[in-house]
């Protein structure tokens, strides 16, 4: 079972690194933010797998914080960083 947990964690980390391409590529700001969102969900899964594999219960708390904070950054993004009124860049 231990091997499976680690293999799956590695696989999820690979997924995460592949998602990095979307952060670099864009094209809109929302796309980059979305990719960061994906990282949050994937890291929650990785942390839970590691918690089970190494039998460290504290990692589940870290996963809980990840789940909460993904929302905080995304709301900060929508409410603050993406408010400038001009739409001409994206409207084409």
């Amino acid at each position, binding site marked *: 079972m231990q091997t499976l947990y680690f293999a799956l964690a*590695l696989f999820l980390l690979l997924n*995460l690194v592949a998602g990095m391409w979307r952060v670099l590529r*864009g094209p809109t*700001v929302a796309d980059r933010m979305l990719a960061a969102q994906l990282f949050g969900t994937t890291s929650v899964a990785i942390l839970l797998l*590691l918690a089970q594999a190494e039998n460290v219960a504290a990692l589940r*708390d870290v996963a809980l914080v*990840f789940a909460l904070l993904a929302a905080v950054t995304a709301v900060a993004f929508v409410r603050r960083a993406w408010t400038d009124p001009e739409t001409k*860049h994206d409207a084409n």
Partner: protein
Amino acid sequence: MLHWAFDSLLGLSLLWLAWRALTSPDLFKAIVLFISFGLLMSLAWVRLGAPDVALAEAAIGAGLTGALLLAALARLESIGEAGRQKGSIGETGAHDR
């Protein structure tokens, strides 16, 4: 073996992320890279056997600082918009479509 692969992938992507975040000319992209860096750094602390540091890194490094940086960028842009018609500060993100 699997531990090894996991750790080296984590370390390499951390280095790469740090480099991209530092050198990116697009501020918004740099912030998102910084947030991802914080998330991966937190995973690295977990692998180093320090879940408490990982907790702090996730909360402060990725969450709080990320939100503050986004707010700061918005402030920068609005200052840039007010100060001039067309310039360099406000041109981030959405531009490269």
